[in-house]
């Protein structure tokens, strides 16, 4: 059948809903924008510097790894930029340039690319980088030390450090609305609670993140903190305080929900969020670290493949098709 005109013979389906990884990445960045903008307005040029360096470094590392591994360039999907952005959001504004370079290297190369790139990373890359930095340069990652030269007219003691050293009485130095509006020291993009919630809701409504994880994480932080608070109100802070301080909100909406390292089935998602929440409060209240979100989520990332084995039975398992 000689015919000049040939048709594309791809496989069904022939339609696609138009979603793409890059759209997802850019939406995530858009959702992070309110928190980031507040961070920049508070901390000024240094914060902007950290953000810009982090995003660009992350993309450069990605490109270098693409070349080294002889794979097509993948910076277009925006995933590296998201990792860079999230990493910067978690950092204090005073972070030195070399820490950002090393951190993005760890995130993109060690955390993601050597496992095979997007979708292959067993742990959240940005959190891997933050955790490693926390272990290596403790004082740099300590917000009280790092932000010692800033004074914005509100209590400049990192809230979680305050309750760790002074117990629940320190809670009264902060007001809830203030915490929600970003009146607390912390990472560049982690303090503006309201912005993070808006961003998170946007992502949930757009279907880019799985609401089950965020919800169960927040709920379990609340419940666990409440139990601690009831057991000893002088020692352990109230649950709302735990929800609005530290990395809790960014963790719930941007970190725990990272695709590759979180479960996709319904019950595992709830369990994952719940355990991460419990662990977060445990670390904060009795563990060694000031903020537990980073390691709690990493720990659950590790448990993710096992959790995700809990899944509904497939329909008519074993139907033979003619």
């Amino acid at each position, binding site marked *: 059948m000689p015919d000049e*005109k040939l048709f*594309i013979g*791809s*496989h069904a389906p022939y339609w696609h809903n138009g979603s*793409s990884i890059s759209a997802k990445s850019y939406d995530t960045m858009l959702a992070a924008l309110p928190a980031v903008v507040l961070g920049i307005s508070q901390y000024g040029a240094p914060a902007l510097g950290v953000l810009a360096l982090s995003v660009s470094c992350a993309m450069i590392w990605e490109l270098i790894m693409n070349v080294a591994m002889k794979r097509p360039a993948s910076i277009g999907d925006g995933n590296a930029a998201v990792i860079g952005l999230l990493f910067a959001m978690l950092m204090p504004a005073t972070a030195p340039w070399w820490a950002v370079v090393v951190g993005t290297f760890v995130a993109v190369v060690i955390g993601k690319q050597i496992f095979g790139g997007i979708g292959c990373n067993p742990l959240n890359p940005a959190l891997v980088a933050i955790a490693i930095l926390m272990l290596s340069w403790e004082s740099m990652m300590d917000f009280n030390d790092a932000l010692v030269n800033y004074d914005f007219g509100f209590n400049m003691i990192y809230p979680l450090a305050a309750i760790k050293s002074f117990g629940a009485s320190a809670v009264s130095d902060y007001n809830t609305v203030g915490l929600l509006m970003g009146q607390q020291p912390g990472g560049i993009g982690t303090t503006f609670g309201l912005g993070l919630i808006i961003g998170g809701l946007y992502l949930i409504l757009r279907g880019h993140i*799985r609401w089950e994880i965020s919800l169960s994480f927040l709920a379990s932080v609340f419940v666990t903190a409440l139990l601690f608070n009831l057991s000893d109100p002088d020692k352990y802070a109230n649950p709302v305080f735990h929800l609005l301080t530290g990395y809790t909100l960014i963790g719930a909406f941007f970190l725990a929900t990272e695709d590759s390292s979180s479960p*996709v089935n319904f019950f595992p998602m709830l369990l994952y969020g719940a355990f991460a929440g419990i662990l977060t409060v445990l670390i904060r209240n009795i563990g060694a670290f000031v903020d537990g979100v980073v390691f709690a989520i990493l720990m659950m990332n590790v448990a993710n493949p096992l959790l995700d084995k809990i899944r509904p039975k497939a329909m008519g398992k074993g139907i033979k098709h003619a």
Partner: protein
Amino acid sequence: MIKRPFFSLGKPKLKYPVDDTQEQDVIRVIPLPDRVTFFLEDPYERNEGFLIKPGDKIKTGQKLKLTEDDKDYVISSVTGTIADISQYRGYLGKTYAAISIDTGDEEQWDDKFKEGCQKPTLENSLEFLGCLPGDTGFIPILDTHPPLNTIIINGLDKDILVSTNQLIVQTETDSLKTGIEYLREITGAGEIMIAVSPELASQAGEIDVDVKVIEPSYPNTLPEIIMKSILGKTPPADETWEQIGVGLINAEAVVAISNAFTKGQIPVSKLLTVINKDNTTVHVRARVGTHVKEILAALDIETYHGDQLVLGGPMTGHALYSEDLPILADTDAIMVHDKDNVVLPSDCHCINCGECVRACPARIPVNMLIRVLENDLYEEAAKEYDLLSCIECGLCSYVCPARIPIFHYIMLGKYELARIETVEESNA
């Protein structure tokens, strides 16, 4: 193409776009084609020793068989001369004998059926109605022991934008009625039901059977889901629907049964929905075996190099590489897809976003399945990740942000698995 809505929480909702029904009712009849082609499954890849050979005169309605022992046959839809019998390798590497017939001037009907089969009986049906327009799945329904308890008539269409069966329910209610009577006589089935969309529920109510209303949004209209939502069960492992006593038949085939026994002629025309590039649809009636080119020419649809030509709907159809391929007895639709809208698959790794898992009506862990399939672990895919539960709806590929051709991998997996099994059986 239905885009993802701006806010999308949960499963994709693929409502069937409702067209202007008035225009839909006009069925355009495609003129008798110059040449038709039929495919007969031929696993042996033989080339000679056939009962038929080029140059043979064929009448309309004549039964064509490759050898005396073969069970498979086709019914010629035209009168003419066999021009060519050649090999054709179709979907998933299946081999067929392609029989091309040049249409003669005058139509003559083969009267074997008329003579031999006045009565609708099981034997007659097995002998002549194996490839009715509308459904090739008729034989399994007939050929069961004991006879089926339940037969469901599918008044819905499998795929989005396709409305062939719906049109049949709408316009040929009477034939449907008689068809059901015949069907009851032939199969002795205890219960016959019809599944229709809500718009046609009242019309179907005139038929003297149980009417089941199915929300016509994809994938509710896939045969497996229809059966499941009507009967509330799925067959246990390693059994087919027929084995648990249930059969499904398209409404068009039921009408064809009715026409066959009332007119004494096996129907040879097929009703089709043609989906144009702008997603407008036209209904046409064409002889089975007509080449797609002639149908498109009759409708003034222009195609260009690089477009996509699909037999079937956008979710489950099969792409053709050439216009010179025929429509088959079970082709419900032809879709012409503009080259600008063609979805190009990517080589991205699964990003584990979970869209596919949420979309999957069969609750398959697609995120893991695609990983094992990419690594060619077909047996593990079947054993641990429910490869064989897939009902082939294509939603996973449809929603995948990484644009992985998941459905393609799944079909490849099933194919490879079947191949491994045959190899093992022949070795055993």
